[in-house]
């Protein structure tokens, strides 16, 4: 079976070789290692060896022709073989590949000038539309890549060496007007200057913001998400803004010794564990928050001024104690109301709160279940918050913010020991509650919480 002798790679960088002259002619016998021809490579004139044995049946590439590495140059086989077809095919192969390889090299040449041109300035891209077309017809990919990559490179220049942002006065004025951080806008003007059109484009599509730095690293920037404003969020926004703006808030903070209430709750819950419900389920445990609710309810009865509301032409001191419990739900919060908290037992409070919270999370609360509270408690202790100030739930006169129980050094009888504290912060509407009243309320609340036996009252 005749074999095709191919142009061999005679140097690491050789891609094609020119046959200078054949040292064997058709009909000669060939053995592996024989020199078939002298080939001029990119580096020098080298000797091309044969790898097959047989007779040189045909020369495909004549002396003087330039053949790429791997393409047929000769056919070696048994002397009587008919290799006409093989010759034909080989010759075809050569002409086919020559055509595309020469066009490939054409593209490479054209892309190169384009690359340099494009790095210079974007305007040149526009000035040479014809050139782009030409190369696109032949091999679209390289120039497309060039086009895509280069513009962003020039954009890097909008951070100049001094770190200044280039933006036209108009663009700056517009950005200011629309409260846009101009640093986030991609500039398309000369030298990457940010123009009016860029700010306008940013307004339409803020995702296209750039965050490029001088280091040429590209970061994975998460997309901005536009969230529609839900009904609940709207309400929260309106009510809390109104409260913050209209009510003269002031804040009183106490830090109580939380050890008693913690101990109390433990004892209570372990005692409770001995009981069972009528349906044989265990009675659910009480939480610290449940204790706080009871303590607050009892304190409010003793300080009705804090259980009140500014009613424009009068101040209403409520007889009932309905405490709103702030519950965090998906996409917002809601405040279901625990009615007559002062008359409920700890267990009653605990169960009711659980019920309300569950309903709240399932969005099954009826309007009458989350309105008309007289006081609100917000507890962020489960999130680890040490201390915070809450916004009053208008038209109430106060709200209590409860922090987490912290272990920290405390002073007892002149000694520093490890203790447990909890921060309670009362926000008051100064139109209704003065500092002294608020302070007295908190003092009472502290008494209840630091002497939790009183919660049985």
């Amino acid at each position, binding site marked *: 079976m005749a074999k095709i002798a191919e142009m061999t790679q005679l140097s690491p960088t050789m891609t094609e070789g020119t046959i200078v002259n054949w040292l064997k002619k058709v009909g000669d016998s060939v053995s592996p290692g024989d020199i078939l021809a002298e080939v001029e490579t990119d580096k020098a004139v080298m000797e091309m060896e044969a790898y097959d044995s047989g007779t040189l049946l045909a020369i495909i590439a004549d002396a003087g022709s330039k053949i790429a590495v791997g393409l047929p140059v000769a056919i070696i086989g048994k002397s009587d073989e008919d290799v006409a077809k093989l010759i034909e095919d080989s010759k075809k192969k050569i002409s086919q590949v020559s055509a595309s390889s020469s066009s490939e090299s054409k593209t490479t040449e054209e892309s190169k000038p384009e690359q340099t041109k494009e790095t210079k300035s974007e*305007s040149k891209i*526009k000035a040479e539309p014809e050139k782009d077309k030409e190369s696109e017809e032949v091999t679209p990919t390289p120039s497309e890549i060039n086009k895509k990559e280069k513009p962003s490179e020039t954009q890097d220049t909008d951070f100049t060496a001094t770190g200044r942002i280039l933006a036209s*006065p*108009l663009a700056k*004025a517009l950005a200011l007007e629309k409260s846009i951080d101009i640093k986030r806008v991609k500039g398309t*003007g000369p030298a990457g200057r940010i123009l*009016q059109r860029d700010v306008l484009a940013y307004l339409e599509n803020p995702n296209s913001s750039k965050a490029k730095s001088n280091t040429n690293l590209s970061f994975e920037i998460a997309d901005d998400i536009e969230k529609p404003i839900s009904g609940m969020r709207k309400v929260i926004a309106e009510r809390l803004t109104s409260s913050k703006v209209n009510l003269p808030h002031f804040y009183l903070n106490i830090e109580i010794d939380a050890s008693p209430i913690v101990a109390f709750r433990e004892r209570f819950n372990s005692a409770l564990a001995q009981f069972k419900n009528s349906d044989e389920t265990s009675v659910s445990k009480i939480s610290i928050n449940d204790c706080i609710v009871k303590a607050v309810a009892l304190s409010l009865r003793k300080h009705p001024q804090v259980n009140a509301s500014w009613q424009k032409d009068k101040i209403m001191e409520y007889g009932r104690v309905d405490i709103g419990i702030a519950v965090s739900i998906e996409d917002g919060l809601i405040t279901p109301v625990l009615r007559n908290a002062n008359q409920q037992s700890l267990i009653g409070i605990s169960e009711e709160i659980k019920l309300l919270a569950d309903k709240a999370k399932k969005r099954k609360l009826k309007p009458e279940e989350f309105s008309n509270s007289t006081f609100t408690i917000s507890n962020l202790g489960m999130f680890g918050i040490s201390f915070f100030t809450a916004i009053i739930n208008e038209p109430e006169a106060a709200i209590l913010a409860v922090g987490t129980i912290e272990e920290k050094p405390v002073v007892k009888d002149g000694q520093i020991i490890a203790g447990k504290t909890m921060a309670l912060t009362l926000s008051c509407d100064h139109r209704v509650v003065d500092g002294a009243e608020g302070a007295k309320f908190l003092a009472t609340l502290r008494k209840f919480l630091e002497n939790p036996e009183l919660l049985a009252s």
Partner: protein
Amino acid sequence: MGNVTYREALNRAMVEEMQKDPLIFLMGEEVGHYQGAYKVSQGMLDKFGEARVIDTPISENGFAGIGVGSAMTGLRPIIEFMTWNFSLVAIDQIINSAAKMLYMSGGQFPMPIVFRGAGGAGGRLAAQHSQAFESWYAHIPGLKVIAPATPKDACGLLKSSILDNNPTIFIESEVLYGMKGEIPDEEFYIPLGKADIKREGSDISIITWSRALGFSMEAAEDLAKEGINVEVLDLRSLRPLDIDAIVQTVRKTNRAVIVEEGWPMAGFGAHVAYVIQKEAFDYLDHPVERVTQRDVPMSYAANLERESLPNATRIKEKIRSMLE
């Protein structure tokens, strides 16, 4: 509405005013018997006689001085310089006498005088006959400087200049003398100090005057085909300058290019650029640009002159680059 040439419009302005006020006279080289070097004063000698249409020897300094002296004593001279290039020999009379007279005399001697003539390039007239002088004169407090670009503007503004009690530098253009344009049949005046939008646009403002208006309009029409909508503001009056009109157009389009026949350094457009960045800074989306005559004395060669002038091609190139 009639259709007349620029030179006919000027003629009409002078004739109308001279018919009304016998104290107005025209003085200059070849204004009388020759009918005007550019035929601007055609027929005026016959109408008004040698006492009021006065041919002079080649003595610009002399007859400019005569103009100043007669203006001091109640006459209202129109002094013609054949071209403004020749005003250089008389510039002492214009600046040191005419412009400053009222001030130096503490208000006693106003100068109701018009100096008029052709300014800018005329067409292969070479270096000494092709200069634009508006920045020279606009620099001087006490003068008014007017440069109309159309027959209608030329007529209305010359009439107002003649009636104005200040020394007025009225710059025409040889190239424009033959230009035809619409003009009202009834008598009309155009106030000094008011610019005119010659073409409404939205993408960019060209601010220009005199002959450069022609190049600007040509460029604007061509660019319209490319989808670029150019607004063209013809200043008409350089001193006093219509700052409001300039600011208004820049606020509208956010880009300004000044096109002028003068040279770039310290040309009048440089002052306009200052005014724009000062008064309309926050409305600019691009630095203010200028297309001027190239910074060379005017060559005689036709191609060099063409390329040296602020022609439509150069204007279009500049505008395209400003919109990228």
